[in-house]
Protein backbone atom coordinates (compact mmCIF):
# COMPACT_ATOMS: atom_id res chain seq x y z
CA UNK A 1 0.00 0.00 0.00
CA UNK A 2 1.61 3.20 -1.13
CA UNK A 3 0.42 5.84 1.26
CA UNK A 4 1.72 9.35 1.80
CA UNK A 5 2.99 8.04 5.10
CA UNK A 6 4.99 5.33 3.37
CA UNK A 7 6.39 7.75 0.81
CA UNK A 8 7.47 10.32 3.36
CA UNK A 9 9.06 7.73 5.59
CA UNK A 10 10.92 6.18 2.69
CA UNK A 11 11.98 9.61 1.53
CA UNK A 12 13.50 10.35 4.92
CA UNK A 13 15.17 6.96 4.80
CA UNK A 14 16.61 7.71 1.38
CA UNK A 15 17.84 11.18 2.36
CA UNK A 16 19.40 9.81 5.52
CA UNK A 17 21.31 7.12 3.67
CA UNK A 18 22.10 9.62 0.96
CA UNK A 19 23.60 11.91 3.57
CA UNK A 20 26.00 9.22 4.68
CA UNK A 21 26.98 8.47 1.10
CA UNK A 22 27.40 12.16 0.37
CA UNK A 23 29.75 12.69 3.32
CA UNK A 24 31.81 9.71 2.25
CA UNK A 25 31.87 10.74 -1.37
CA UNK A 26 33.15 14.22 -0.52
CA UNK A 27 36.23 12.69 1.09
CA UNK A 28 36.89 10.62 -2.01
CA UNK A 29 36.24 13.55 -4.33
CA UNK A 30 38.57 15.91 -2.49
CA UNK A 31 41.48 13.56 -2.77
CA UNK A 32 40.73 12.49 -6.32
CA UNK A 33 40.38 16.07 -7.48
CA UNK A 34 43.88 17.01 -6.46
CA UNK A 35 45.81 13.77 -6.75
CA UNK A 36 43.82 11.70 -9.23
CA UNK A 37 43.90 9.03 -6.54
CA UNK A 38 40.94 6.73 -5.93
CA UNK A 39 41.46 6.03 -2.25
CA UNK A 40 39.81 2.72 -1.47
CA UNK A 41 41.32 2.79 1.97
CA UNK A 42 38.91 5.63 2.72
CA UNK A 43 36.38 3.01 3.73
CA UNK A 44 38.67 1.66 6.42
CA UNK A 45 38.74 5.06 8.06
CA UNK A 46 35.11 4.38 8.96
CA UNK A 47 36.30 1.21 10.63
CA UNK A 48 39.13 2.93 12.47
CA UNK A 49 36.84 5.60 13.86
CA UNK A 50 34.20 3.09 14.90
CA UNK A 51 36.58 0.76 16.71
CA UNK A 52 38.22 3.66 18.52
CA UNK A 53 34.83 4.90 19.63
CA UNK A 54 33.95 1.37 20.70
CA UNK A 55 37.08 1.05 22.81
CA UNK A 56 36.38 4.37 24.51
CA UNK A 57 32.79 3.39 25.16
CA UNK A 58 33.82 0.04 26.57
CA UNK A 59 36.12 1.65 29.12
CA UNK A 60 33.20 3.71 30.30
CA UNK A 61 33.69 7.12 28.72
CA UNK A 62 30.60 9.11 27.78
CA UNK A 63 29.36 8.87 24.22
CA UNK A 64 30.39 12.31 23.12
CA UNK A 65 33.97 11.67 24.22
CA UNK A 66 34.00 8.37 22.36
CA UNK A 67 32.60 10.09 19.28
CA UNK A 68 35.29 12.76 19.35
CA UNK A 69 37.90 10.10 19.91
CA UNK A 70 36.67 8.12 16.95
CA UNK A 71 36.67 11.11 14.64
CA UNK A 72 40.14 12.11 15.79
CA UNK A 73 41.43 8.60 15.20
CA UNK A 74 40.09 8.58 11.64
CA UNK A 75 41.66 11.92 10.92
CA UNK A 76 45.04 10.89 12.29
CA UNK A 77 45.11 7.59 10.42
CA UNK A 78 44.08 9.38 7.25
CA UNK A 79 46.96 11.82 7.57
CA UNK A 80 49.42 9.02 8.29
CA UNK A 81 48.13 7.15 5.26
CA UNK A 82 48.82 10.17 3.07
CA UNK A 83 52.29 10.75 4.41
CA UNK A 84 53.48 7.16 4.36
CA UNK A 85 51.77 5.53 1.42
CA UNK A 86 50.68 8.24 -0.98
CA UNK A 87 53.19 11.06 -0.81
CA UNK A 88 56.13 8.91 -1.92
CA UNK A 89 54.28 7.91 -5.05
CA UNK A 90 52.95 11.29 -6.07
CA UNK A 91 53.20 11.70 -9.79
CA UNK A 92 53.04 7.97 -10.40
CA UNK A 93 50.54 6.71 -12.99
CA UNK A 94 46.93 6.57 -11.78
CA UNK A 95 46.94 2.79 -11.76
CA UNK A 96 49.86 2.61 -9.33
CA UNK A 97 48.05 4.93 -6.94
CA UNK A 98 44.82 2.93 -7.17
CA UNK A 99 46.64 -0.31 -6.44
CA UNK A 100 48.49 1.25 -3.55
CA UNK A 101 45.19 2.23 -2.01
CA UNK A 102 44.18 -1.43 -2.29
CA UNK A 103 47.35 -2.40 -0.48
CA UNK A 104 46.61 0.09 2.28
CA UNK A 105 43.09 -1.32 2.60
CA UNK A 106 44.41 -4.85 2.99
CA UNK A 107 46.95 -3.65 5.52
CA UNK A 108 44.36 -1.86 7.65
CA UNK A 109 41.74 -4.59 7.42
CA UNK A 110 44.12 -7.36 8.36
CA UNK A 111 45.57 -5.34 11.20
CA UNK A 112 42.07 -4.87 12.51
CA UNK A 113 41.40 -8.58 12.14
CA UNK A 114 44.49 -9.38 14.14
CA UNK A 115 43.77 -6.81 16.83
CA UNK A 116 40.04 -7.21 17.14
CA UNK A 117 39.03 -10.60 15.80
CA UNK A 118 37.24 -11.10 12.51
CA UNK A 119 33.80 -11.38 14.02
CA UNK A 120 31.62 -8.37 14.60
CA UNK A 121 31.13 -6.77 17.95
CA UNK A 122 28.06 -4.93 19.17
CA UNK A 123 28.26 -1.15 19.23
CA UNK A 124 26.67 0.16 22.41
CA UNK A 125 25.23 3.44 21.22
CA UNK A 126 23.14 5.31 23.77
CA UNK A 127 19.55 4.04 23.60
CA UNK A 128 18.17 7.45 22.72
CA UNK A 129 19.77 7.11 19.31
CA UNK A 130 17.85 3.96 18.48
CA UNK A 131 14.52 5.35 19.44
CA UNK A 132 11.72 6.37 17.17
CA UNK A 133 9.88 9.65 17.18
CA UNK A 134 6.25 10.06 16.22
CA UNK A 135 5.14 13.24 14.46
CA UNK A 136 1.45 12.98 13.69
CA UNK A 137 0.95 10.04 11.32
CA UNK A 138 4.69 9.68 10.72
CA UNK A 139 7.22 7.60 12.57
CA UNK A 140 10.86 8.50 12.11
CA UNK A 141 14.02 6.94 13.46
CA UNK A 142 15.92 9.51 15.52
CA UNK A 143 19.10 8.31 13.91
CA UNK A 144 17.82 9.14 10.44
CA UNK A 145 16.99 12.67 11.50
CA UNK A 146 20.31 13.11 13.24
CA UNK A 147 22.14 11.89 10.17
CA UNK A 148 20.32 14.39 7.97
CA UNK A 149 20.89 17.29 10.36
CA UNK A 150 24.53 16.49 10.99
CA UNK A 151 25.19 16.10 7.28
CA UNK A 152 23.44 19.37 6.58
CA UNK A 153 25.53 21.25 9.13
CA UNK A 154 28.75 19.71 7.91
CA UNK A 155 27.93 20.50 4.31
CA UNK A 156 27.25 24.13 5.14
CA UNK A 157 30.52 24.38 7.07
CA UNK A 158 32.36 22.73 4.23
CA UNK A 159 30.89 25.10 1.68
CA UNK A 160 31.98 28.05 3.77
CA UNK A 161 35.41 26.53 4.05
CA UNK A 162 35.97 26.08 0.32
CA UNK A 163 34.58 29.47 -0.60
CA UNK A 164 35.69 31.75 2.22
CA UNK A 165 39.03 30.48 3.43
CA UNK A 166 42.31 30.70 1.60
CA UNK A 167 43.09 27.03 2.17
CA UNK A 168 39.68 26.04 0.92
CA UNK A 169 39.98 28.09 -2.25
CA UNK A 170 43.51 26.76 -2.72
CA UNK A 171 42.08 23.27 -2.53
CA UNK A 172 39.65 24.01 -5.32
CA UNK A 173 42.40 25.65 -7.34
CA UNK A 174 44.72 22.68 -6.84
CA UNK A 175 42.08 20.24 -7.98
CA UNK A 176 41.52 22.21 -11.16
CA UNK A 177 45.12 22.75 -12.15
CA UNK A 178 47.81 21.42 -9.88
CA UNK A 179 50.67 22.87 -11.90
CA UNK A 180 49.22 26.37 -11.97
CA UNK A 181 48.60 26.10 -8.24
CA UNK A 182 52.25 25.29 -7.68
CA UNK A 183 53.29 28.21 -9.86
CA UNK A 184 51.20 30.51 -7.71
CA UNK A 185 53.06 29.38 -4.65
CA UNK A 186 50.22 27.36 -3.18
CA UNK A 187 51.69 24.93 -0.68
CA UNK A 188 50.54 21.75 -2.32
CA UNK A 189 51.65 19.49 0.53
CA UNK A 190 49.57 21.50 2.96
CA UNK A 191 46.52 21.53 0.70
CA UNK A 192 46.70 17.79 0.22
CA UNK A 193 47.03 17.25 3.95
CA UNK A 194 43.91 19.35 4.50
CA UNK A 195 42.03 17.36 1.88
CA UNK A 196 42.91 14.09 3.59
CA UNK A 197 42.20 15.48 7.04
CA UNK A 198 38.76 16.78 6.16
CA UNK A 199 37.83 13.67 4.20
CA UNK A 200 39.00 11.42 7.02
CA UNK A 201 37.14 13.45 9.59
CA UNK A 202 33.95 13.09 7.58
CA UNK A 203 34.62 9.37 7.32
CA UNK A 204 34.89 9.24 11.09
CA UNK A 205 31.51 10.91 11.43
CA UNK A 206 29.99 8.48 8.95
CA UNK A 207 31.54 5.62 10.90
CA UNK A 208 29.74 6.64 14.07
CA UNK A 209 26.41 7.11 12.35
CA UNK A 210 26.80 3.84 10.49
CA UNK A 211 27.78 1.83 13.57
CA UNK A 212 24.92 3.27 15.54
CA UNK A 213 22.59 2.45 12.68
CA UNK A 214 23.58 -1.20 12.23
CA UNK A 215 24.46 -1.71 15.87
CA UNK A 216 27.78 -3.41 15.33
CA UNK A 217 31.32 -3.02 14.08
CA UNK A 218 33.56 -5.46 12.21
CA UNK A 219 36.94 -5.16 10.52
CA UNK A 220 35.52 -5.22 7.01
CA UNK A 221 32.73 -2.75 7.66
CA UNK A 222 34.24 -0.12 5.44
CA UNK A 223 34.19 -2.21 2.31
CA UNK A 224 30.65 -1.67 1.07
CA UNK A 225 30.41 1.96 2.15
CA UNK A 226 33.48 2.93 0.16
CA UNK A 227 32.19 1.13 -2.91
CA UNK A 228 28.92 2.98 -2.59
CA UNK A 229 30.70 6.27 -1.93
CA UNK A 230 32.68 5.62 -5.01
CA UNK A 231 29.61 5.04 -7.13
CA UNK A 232 28.13 8.24 -5.69
CA UNK A 233 31.24 10.14 -6.61
CA UNK A 234 31.18 8.89 -10.17
CA UNK A 235 27.49 9.67 -10.51
CA UNK A 236 28.11 13.25 -9.57
CA UNK A 237 31.37 13.55 -11.46
CA UNK A 238 34.70 12.35 -10.10
CA UNK A 239 36.62 15.05 -8.32
CA UNK A 240 33.67 17.41 -8.23
CA UNK A 241 32.61 18.39 -4.71
CA UNK A 242 29.02 19.48 -5.34
CA UNK A 243 28.79 16.48 -7.64
CA UNK A 244 29.83 14.15 -4.83
CA UNK A 245 27.09 15.51 -2.62
CA UNK A 246 24.51 15.26 -5.36
CA UNK A 247 25.71 11.79 -6.25
CA UNK A 248 25.38 10.66 -2.64
CA UNK A 249 21.76 11.70 -2.45
CA UNK A 250 20.96 10.35 -5.90
CA UNK A 251 22.44 7.02 -4.89
CA UNK A 252 20.47 6.95 -1.64
CA UNK A 253 17.26 7.66 -3.50
CA UNK A 254 18.13 5.15 -6.22
CA UNK A 255 18.75 2.40 -3.70
CA UNK A 256 15.47 2.97 -1.89
CA UNK A 257 13.62 3.23 -5.18
CA UNK A 258 15.08 -0.04 -6.44
CA UNK A 259 14.31 -1.65 -3.13
CA UNK A 260 10.71 -0.67 -3.51
CA UNK A 261 10.25 -1.17 -7.24
CA UNK A 262 12.10 -4.39 -7.92
CA UNK A 263 9.97 -7.53 -7.86
CA UNK A 264 10.54 -9.55 -4.73
CA UNK A 265 12.68 -12.20 -6.33
CA UNK A 266 15.03 -9.60 -7.75
CA UNK A 267 15.61 -7.44 -4.65
CA UNK A 268 18.78 -9.30 -3.64
CA UNK A 269 20.20 -8.23 -6.94
CA UNK A 270 19.75 -4.59 -5.99
CA UNK A 271 23.44 -3.93 -5.67
CA UNK A 272 24.08 -5.48 -9.06
CA UNK A 273 21.56 -3.07 -10.53
CA UNK A 274 23.25 -0.15 -8.82
CA UNK A 275 26.54 -1.10 -10.40
CA UNK A 276 24.89 -1.68 -13.74
CA UNK A 277 23.56 1.87 -13.53
CA UNK A 278 27.09 2.98 -12.73
CA UNK A 279 28.46 1.27 -15.81
CA UNK A 280 25.75 2.72 -18.03
CA UNK A 281 26.48 6.14 -16.64
CA UNK A 282 30.18 5.74 -17.31
CA UNK A 283 29.42 4.85 -20.88
CA UNK A 284 27.22 7.76 -21.70
CA UNK A 285 28.24 10.45 -19.33
CA UNK A 286 31.61 9.50 -17.92
CA UNK A 287 32.02 12.82 -16.26
CA UNK A 288 28.91 12.34 -14.21
CA UNK A 289 25.88 14.54 -13.83
CA UNK A 290 27.73 17.68 -12.88
CA UNK A 291 31.05 17.02 -14.52
CA UNK A 292 32.08 19.01 -17.53
CA UNK A 293 32.77 17.06 -20.69
CA UNK A 294 36.51 17.12 -20.71
CA UNK A 295 38.32 16.82 -23.94
CA UNK A 296 41.66 15.19 -23.56
CA UNK A 297 44.38 17.76 -24.19
CA UNK A 298 46.87 16.62 -26.77
Amino acid sequence: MITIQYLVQQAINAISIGSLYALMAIGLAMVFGILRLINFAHGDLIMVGSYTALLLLVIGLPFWVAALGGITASTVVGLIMERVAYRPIRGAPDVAMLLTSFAVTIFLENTAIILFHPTSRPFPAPPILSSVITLGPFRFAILDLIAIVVAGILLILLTLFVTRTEVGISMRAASQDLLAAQLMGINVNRVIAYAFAIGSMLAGVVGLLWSARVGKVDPLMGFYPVLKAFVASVIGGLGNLPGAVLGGYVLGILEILLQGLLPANLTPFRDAFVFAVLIILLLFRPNGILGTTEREKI
Partner: protein
Amino acid sequence: MLLLENIDVFYDQVQALKCINLEIQEGELVALLGSNGAGKTTTLMTISGILRPRDGNLTYNGYDLTRASPLGIVQLGIIQCPEGRRIFGGLSVLENLQMGAVRRKERSGVKSDLEMVCELFPVLGQRLHQNGATLSGGEQQMLAIARALMAKPQLLMMDEPSLGLAPLIVSEIFKVILKLHQQGVTILLVEQNARQALLVADRSYLLETGKIVLSGPSSELRVNPKVEHFYLGGSTA
Protein backbone atom coordinates in the same frame (compact mmCIF):
# COMPACT_ATOMS: atom_id res chain seq x y z
CA MET B 1 69.70 39.37 -10.88
CA LEU B 2 68.88 36.02 -12.46
CA LEU B 3 71.69 33.95 -13.86
CA LEU B 4 71.58 30.62 -15.70
CA GLU B 5 74.96 29.02 -16.27
CA ASN B 6 75.46 26.00 -18.48
CA ILE B 7 72.05 24.61 -17.70
CA ASP B 8 71.26 21.12 -19.03
CA VAL B 9 67.72 19.81 -18.70
CA PHE B 10 66.55 16.34 -19.65
CA TYR B 11 63.14 14.74 -20.09
CA ASP B 12 64.03 11.13 -19.24
CA GLN B 13 66.69 10.43 -21.86
CA VAL B 14 65.96 13.32 -24.18
CA GLN B 15 67.96 16.49 -23.70
CA ALA B 16 65.69 19.51 -23.90
CA LEU B 17 68.14 22.25 -22.95
CA LYS B 18 71.82 22.20 -23.82
CA CYS B 19 74.24 24.41 -21.97
CA ILE B 20 71.96 27.39 -21.57
CA ASN B 21 73.53 30.65 -20.50
CA LEU B 22 71.17 33.46 -19.75
CA GLU B 23 71.08 36.49 -17.51
CA ILE B 24 68.57 39.14 -16.56
CA GLN B 25 69.42 42.36 -14.78
CA GLU B 26 67.01 44.18 -12.56
CA GLY B 27 64.53 46.33 -14.40
CA GLU B 28 65.23 44.76 -17.79
CA LEU B 29 62.72 43.32 -20.20
CA VAL B 30 64.40 40.32 -21.78
CA ALA B 31 62.81 38.28 -24.54
CA LEU B 32 63.38 34.58 -25.14
CA LEU B 33 62.47 33.78 -28.72
CA GLY B 34 62.18 30.59 -30.66
CA SER B 35 59.74 28.40 -32.48
CA ASN B 36 57.66 25.54 -31.12
CA GLY B 37 59.61 22.92 -29.25
CA ALA B 38 62.74 25.05 -28.98
CA GLY B 39 62.71 24.74 -25.21
CA LYS B 40 61.31 28.08 -24.12
CA THR B 41 58.70 26.67 -21.76
CA THR B 42 61.22 24.16 -20.48
CA THR B 43 63.48 27.07 -19.57
CA LEU B 44 60.76 28.83 -17.63
CA MET B 45 59.72 25.63 -15.85
CA THR B 46 63.32 25.08 -14.83
CA ILE B 47 63.59 28.58 -13.40
CA SER B 48 60.31 28.00 -11.55
CA GLY B 49 61.67 24.84 -10.02
CA ILE B 50 59.16 22.49 -11.63
CA LEU B 51 61.98 20.90 -13.61
CA ARG B 52 65.41 20.20 -12.20
CA PRO B 53 68.53 20.78 -14.27
CA ARG B 54 70.87 17.84 -14.53
CA ASP B 55 73.83 20.18 -14.82
CA GLY B 56 74.59 23.83 -14.40
CA ASN B 57 73.77 26.61 -11.98
CA LEU B 58 70.75 28.73 -11.40
CA THR B 59 71.36 31.76 -9.21
CA TYR B 60 69.15 34.63 -8.22
CA ASN B 61 70.62 37.61 -6.42
CA GLY B 62 73.30 35.31 -5.13
CA TYR B 63 70.92 32.56 -3.94
CA ASP B 64 71.56 29.16 -5.49
CA LEU B 65 68.23 27.95 -6.81
CA THR B 66 69.41 24.87 -8.68
CA ARG B 67 67.86 22.47 -6.16
CA ALA B 68 65.13 24.74 -4.82
CA SER B 69 61.48 23.76 -4.65
CA PRO B 70 58.79 25.60 -6.62
CA LEU B 71 57.39 26.91 -3.35
CA GLY B 72 60.71 28.41 -2.34
CA ILE B 73 61.25 29.98 -5.73
CA VAL B 74 57.86 31.64 -5.70
CA GLN B 75 58.60 32.94 -2.22
CA LEU B 76 61.58 34.78 -3.66
CA GLY B 77 59.26 36.64 -5.99
CA ILE B 78 59.92 34.74 -9.21
CA ILE B 79 56.44 34.41 -10.67
CA GLN B 80 55.47 32.67 -13.88
CA CYS B 81 52.48 33.47 -16.01
CA PRO B 82 52.28 30.07 -17.71
CA GLU B 83 51.67 29.09 -21.29
CA GLY B 84 48.02 28.69 -22.15
CA ARG B 85 46.96 30.99 -19.36
CA ARG B 86 46.07 28.17 -16.95
CA ILE B 87 43.67 30.22 -14.93
CA PHE B 88 41.44 28.38 -12.49
CA GLY B 89 38.30 28.04 -14.58
CA GLY B 90 36.01 26.94 -11.76
CA LEU B 91 37.06 29.81 -9.53
CA SER B 92 35.76 33.33 -9.86
CA VAL B 93 37.95 36.15 -11.16
CA LEU B 94 38.27 37.45 -7.62
CA GLU B 95 39.25 34.01 -6.30
CA ASN B 96 41.85 33.67 -9.06
CA LEU B 97 43.36 36.97 -8.00
CA GLN B 98 43.27 35.91 -4.36
CA MET B 99 45.19 32.79 -5.32
CA GLY B 100 47.80 34.95 -6.96
CA ALA B 101 48.39 36.71 -3.66
CA VAL B 102 48.75 33.49 -1.67
CA ARG B 103 52.50 33.76 -1.45
CA ARG B 104 52.43 37.12 0.26
CA LYS B 105 52.94 36.92 3.98
CA GLU B 106 52.12 40.57 4.64
CA ARG B 107 48.55 41.18 3.62
CA SER B 108 48.63 44.95 3.86
CA GLY B 109 49.30 45.68 0.22
CA VAL B 110 46.96 43.08 -1.21
CA LYS B 111 43.83 45.19 -1.27
CA SER B 112 45.51 48.11 -3.01
CA ASP B 113 47.10 45.75 -5.50
CA LEU B 114 43.66 44.34 -6.22
CA GLU B 115 42.48 47.82 -7.07
CA MET B 116 45.60 48.38 -9.15
CA VAL B 117 45.05 45.35 -11.36
CA CYS B 118 41.41 46.25 -11.80
CA GLU B 119 42.52 49.66 -13.03
CA LEU B 120 45.00 48.05 -15.36
CA PHE B 121 42.39 45.63 -16.68
CA PRO B 122 38.98 47.24 -16.23
CA VAL B 123 37.19 44.24 -17.76
CA LEU B 124 38.32 42.12 -14.81
CA GLY B 125 36.85 44.56 -12.37
CA GLN B 126 33.52 44.23 -14.16
CA ARG B 127 33.56 40.44 -14.05
CA LEU B 128 34.91 40.01 -10.54
CA HIS B 129 32.45 37.32 -9.51
CA GLN B 130 32.20 35.47 -12.78
CA ASN B 131 33.85 32.09 -13.21
CA GLY B 132 37.14 32.15 -15.01
CA ALA B 133 35.95 29.67 -17.58
CA THR B 134 33.34 32.12 -18.86
CA LEU B 135 35.93 34.70 -19.90
CA SER B 136 37.13 35.09 -23.46
CA GLY B 137 40.68 34.17 -24.43
CA GLY B 138 41.92 37.71 -24.19
CA GLU B 139 40.21 38.28 -20.86
CA GLN B 140 41.71 35.06 -19.52
CA GLN B 141 45.16 36.25 -20.54
CA MET B 142 44.56 39.49 -18.72
CA LEU B 143 43.41 37.52 -15.69
CA ALA B 144 46.55 35.39 -15.85
CA ILE B 145 48.76 38.47 -15.92
CA ALA B 146 46.75 40.14 -13.17
CA ARG B 147 46.96 37.01 -11.07
CA ALA B 148 50.72 36.99 -11.47
CA LEU B 149 50.87 40.68 -10.56
CA MET B 150 48.93 39.98 -7.38
CA ALA B 151 51.96 38.02 -6.22
CA LYS B 152 54.00 41.23 -6.32
CA PRO B 153 56.69 39.70 -8.53
CA GLN B 154 60.35 40.65 -8.36
CA LEU B 155 60.81 38.81 -11.63
CA LEU B 156 57.80 38.25 -13.84
CA MET B 157 58.08 35.49 -16.43
CA MET B 158 55.47 35.34 -19.17
CA ASP B 159 55.09 32.34 -21.44
CA GLU B 160 53.63 33.25 -24.83
CA PRO B 161 51.03 35.78 -23.67
CA SER B 162 49.98 36.49 -27.24
CA LEU B 163 49.26 32.88 -28.20
CA GLY B 164 45.90 32.36 -29.81
CA LEU B 165 44.71 35.92 -29.38
CA ALA B 166 43.34 38.34 -31.95
CA PRO B 167 45.81 41.00 -33.14
CA LEU B 168 43.88 43.81 -31.45
CA ILE B 169 44.03 42.03 -28.10
CA VAL B 170 47.69 41.19 -28.65
CA SER B 171 48.60 44.85 -28.98
CA GLU B 172 46.58 45.60 -25.84
CA ILE B 173 48.55 42.94 -23.98
CA PHE B 174 51.86 44.28 -25.21
CA LYS B 175 50.85 47.78 -24.19
CA VAL B 176 50.36 46.45 -20.69
CA ILE B 177 53.70 44.66 -20.79
CA LEU B 178 55.41 47.86 -21.82
CA LYS B 179 53.61 49.76 -19.05
CA LEU B 180 54.79 47.26 -16.47
CA HIS B 181 58.31 47.53 -17.81
CA GLN B 182 58.15 51.29 -17.48
CA GLN B 183 56.99 50.87 -13.89
CA GLY B 184 60.19 49.00 -13.25
CA VAL B 185 59.03 45.37 -13.17
CA THR B 186 61.74 42.95 -14.33
CA ILE B 187 60.28 40.81 -17.07
CA LEU B 188 61.36 37.65 -18.92
CA LEU B 189 59.13 37.38 -21.94
CA VAL B 190 58.91 34.13 -23.88
CA GLU B 191 57.37 34.57 -27.29
CA GLN B 192 56.93 33.06 -30.72
CA ASN B 193 55.72 36.44 -31.93
CA ALA B 194 59.20 37.81 -32.47
CA ARG B 195 58.12 41.05 -34.05
CA GLN B 196 56.17 42.33 -31.06
CA ALA B 197 58.64 40.93 -28.57
CA LEU B 198 61.61 42.65 -30.20
CA LEU B 199 59.76 45.95 -30.15
CA VAL B 200 59.38 45.94 -26.35
CA ALA B 201 62.43 44.04 -25.15
CA ASP B 202 65.78 45.54 -24.23
CA ARG B 203 67.70 42.35 -24.94
CA SER B 204 66.74 39.08 -26.52
CA TYR B 205 67.90 35.50 -26.75
CA LEU B 206 67.09 33.14 -29.59
CA LEU B 207 66.58 29.52 -28.67
CA GLU B 208 66.75 26.74 -31.24
CA THR B 209 66.40 23.04 -30.32
CA GLY B 210 67.54 23.62 -26.78
CA LYS B 211 70.51 25.86 -27.51
CA ILE B 212 70.95 29.62 -27.39
CA VAL B 213 72.03 30.49 -30.91
CA LEU B 214 71.83 34.25 -30.76
CA SER B 215 71.73 36.92 -28.11
CA GLY B 216 72.10 40.63 -27.80
CA PRO B 217 70.25 43.93 -27.78
CA SER B 218 66.95 43.81 -29.60
CA SER B 219 68.06 46.46 -32.04
CA GLU B 220 70.75 44.06 -33.26
CA LEU B 221 68.55 41.00 -33.46
CA ARG B 222 65.92 42.91 -35.32
CA VAL B 223 68.21 43.40 -38.26
CA ASN B 224 69.92 40.03 -38.01
CA PRO B 225 69.30 38.23 -41.31
CA LYS B 226 68.58 34.88 -39.66
CA VAL B 227 65.98 36.36 -37.37
CA GLU B 228 64.59 38.37 -40.22
CA HIS B 229 64.19 35.35 -42.41
CA PHE B 230 62.88 32.76 -40.03
CA TYR B 231 60.98 34.69 -37.44
CA LEU B 232 59.94 37.95 -38.94
CA GLY B 233 58.70 36.71 -42.27
CA GLY B 234 61.16 38.25 -44.60
CA SER B 235 61.60 41.90 -43.80
CA THR B 236 61.22 44.09 -40.79
CA ALA B 237 60.30 47.10 -42.82
